[in-house]
């Protein structure tokens, strides 16, 4: 225990540091004097740069978290894994059929999954990683896309995988296949872009560019506001 009750002692790669309670791991490291380079990106839980593994006290269980989103604890014993060597396939998403064969030919190791579920346990986003790998084996691309959507590509799953699968690369391939080939293209979008390409919006835009400030303000203040559609969001 740290002597002062407002402080905690954590161990970064084995070395102890005393910091005030309540800081995130990231801020605790900065408090301890580190100027971060690797292992620090968005600082807001979106970029996956600060994957961290730790144990607390004598508990044998290995825990994980994003350093920017996890509060430092007394007797926390941690190391960051800011990078993990991973093979990424190169492909042209437009030429690939959205099938199990595509996933397996680019990432054959997905068939080596032993079902240990360690990937799920180490995911700081609590994604059902093993379930989406199973879906990938079956060629259920939509399922992979949906289950993996919140992935930050931090690499912790791959770091612990006994089958040496790089789950997050499989996941992004599946998401791109899903969006490109399985969901229907937006008809209104294609029509709109075609109209713009034909120059059909140019005259209206030119009139806007030519309008003086008084005219623009009048138009702006007289805008009709489209009513809210409460059904619109949160749909598939």
């Amino acid at each position, binding site marked *: 225990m740290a002597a002062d009750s407002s402080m905690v002692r954590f161990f970064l790669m084995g070395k102890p540091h005393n910091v005030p309670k*309540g*800081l*995130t791991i990231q*801020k605790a490291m900065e*408090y301890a004097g580190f*100027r971060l*380079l*690797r292992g620090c*990106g*968005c600082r*807001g*839980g*979106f*970029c996956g*740069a600060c994957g961290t593994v730790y144990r607390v006290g004598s508990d044998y269980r290995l825990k994980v978290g994003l350093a920017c989103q*996890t*509060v430092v604890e007394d007797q926390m014993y941690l190391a960051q894994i800011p990078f993990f060597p991973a093979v990424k396939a*190169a492909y042209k998403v437009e030429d690939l059929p959205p099938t199990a064969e595509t996933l397996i030919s680019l990432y054959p190791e997905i068939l080596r999954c032993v079902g240990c579920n360690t990937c799920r346990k180490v995911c700081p*986003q*609590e994604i059902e990683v093993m379930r989406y790998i199973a879906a990938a084996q079956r060629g259920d691309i939509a399922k992979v896309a949906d289950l993996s*959507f*919140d992935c930050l590509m931090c690499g912790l799953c791959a770091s612990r995988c006994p089958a040496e699968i790089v789950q997050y690369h499989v996941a*992004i391939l599946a*998401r*791109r*296949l*899903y*969006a*490109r*080939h399985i969901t*229907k*293209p937006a*008809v*209104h*979008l*294609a029509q*709109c*872009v075609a109209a*713009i*390409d034909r120059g059909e*919006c140019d005259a*209206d*835009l030119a*009139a*806007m*560019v030519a309008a003086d400030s008084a005219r*623009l*303000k009048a*138009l*702006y203040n007289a*805008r*009709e*506001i*489209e009513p809210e*559609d409460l059904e*619109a*969001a*949160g*749909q*598939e």
Partner: protein
Amino acid sequence: MSYDRDMLESMRRVEATRPARLHQTFPRLTPEDKQALLQKFHPDYRPESMRPLAVGPNAGDRVPHEVANLLEGVSRIDPEAFDLTRPDEDVDILIVGGGGAGTSAALMAQERGAKVLLVTKLRIGDANTMMAQGGIQAADKANDSPAVHYLDVMGGGGFTNIPALVRALTHDAPGVIKWLEELGAMLDKQRDGTMVSIHGGGTCRRRMHSARDYSGAEIMRTLRDEFKNRRIPIREFTAAVELVLDESGQCAGAVLYDMETGEYSLVRAKTVILATGGMGRLHVQGFPCTNHYGATADGLVIGYRAGAKMAFMDAVQYHPTGVAYPEQIVGLLVTEKVRGLGAQLVNAHGERFIYDLETRDTVSAGIIRECGERGKGVRTNTGMEGVWLDSPMIEILRREGTILRALPAMFRQYMRFDIDMRKVPILIYPTQHYQNGGLLITEDAETVVPNLYAAGEVSGGVHGRNRLMGNSLLDILVFGRRAGIAAAERVRRVQQKPLTLAHVRDYRRRVDESGKGTGIPAPMLLPDYARPETVARRHEAVRAA
């Protein structure tokens, strides 16, 4: 999370007024009231927060002290000593910055046969793009048009925006969405393929496209995947610390600095695209910020030193809804989509005080007034102040499950601290979010320095004094693509003279003559979050470099 008694009491009042508020409409401000509110309460209008620049193309223009401190700082290299005769690498296009703008510029330029090198001081994708949650605007529905979008953008910017840039932004927007669709970005769609789109602050049509609330992350990881598929050359953890010109004044490359090894190198390029993002991490006026770690205005500094002009650098965007509680994540973004989906802003007494989807500058000013002059804010046990964002309304107005489906990142962020935003309101306060201005560009993303382009947050003009939600993801893609296309076109015609850093030497001389030099090494590269005690005990003989 352990709320104190006052917060719990206030939360009960929010609950009590909720049924009455559910279907109550709150009036929008008149243009006159809006202007009065901004002038009295928006942080940009505090005269003591800015000073006129001493030197450079914008000498005399007022900018925040934090920006002036860097622009009046010192180069990290000695321009006299640096050997410019032996470039380490020769390319057609050097792209500085690995966010959405830089990556889309690289894709466009590479398709056109240009030899591209992208450098970024952290990793590709470590950028504000990754953190953008709410969405991206595009007028692609039958009741909408680029001209209507144009009007919203101009109104949002207080009619100060540069018309040609707004034209480019709104004209290209549907094409950008189609590009994303073809790249396989998972934008929210209905079963028949129709894009899901909702309102954002200041929109008159439901034009906000999204990818749940990972909109920017989904766009960034898709662009990054495509970038890697194409094996485009990249140097990560490498910053540009000065631009290099040729003797005729054209931009001709950059001095690079390896953030890990400390080694400097020289890349000669026919054109350079600055896509370095904004300045959130300068913490203007001491505000917390929503930005990623590297948002330190580096491109602005080196571009300005090389002669590029800036616009609207006195206009900072404070996002109305930054986290005010819990303490660990203070300043982080609560996406505007939360209000877009129906959550209302209410004070400590559970009363509404502003129309929730006014433009960001206006809502921020309204919150600052509520907590300040009106004294109706909620104070936390760590001394922060804020107002409630009544998130449980979303599930009442729409349906159960909407928050998990449409706001998974927000939900997760709060659940990490045991706050269930489906059941309790969340406490927010304005946070520094966006650099409205930047290096002035043309519709082809050119700065006033020949062969120097800028795209994304580092650039200025398109948003005028205030950007609307959903126009930043759009901006980076529209102008990133335009910069990549224009630069690839330009490289065929570039005649280069011998390289020089005379502009760095001359700039330094003018700063010295002004007597206003700060001596601060610039660009900053990364913020320093060490404790003051730690800083005081640093005894390096040389601070710079």
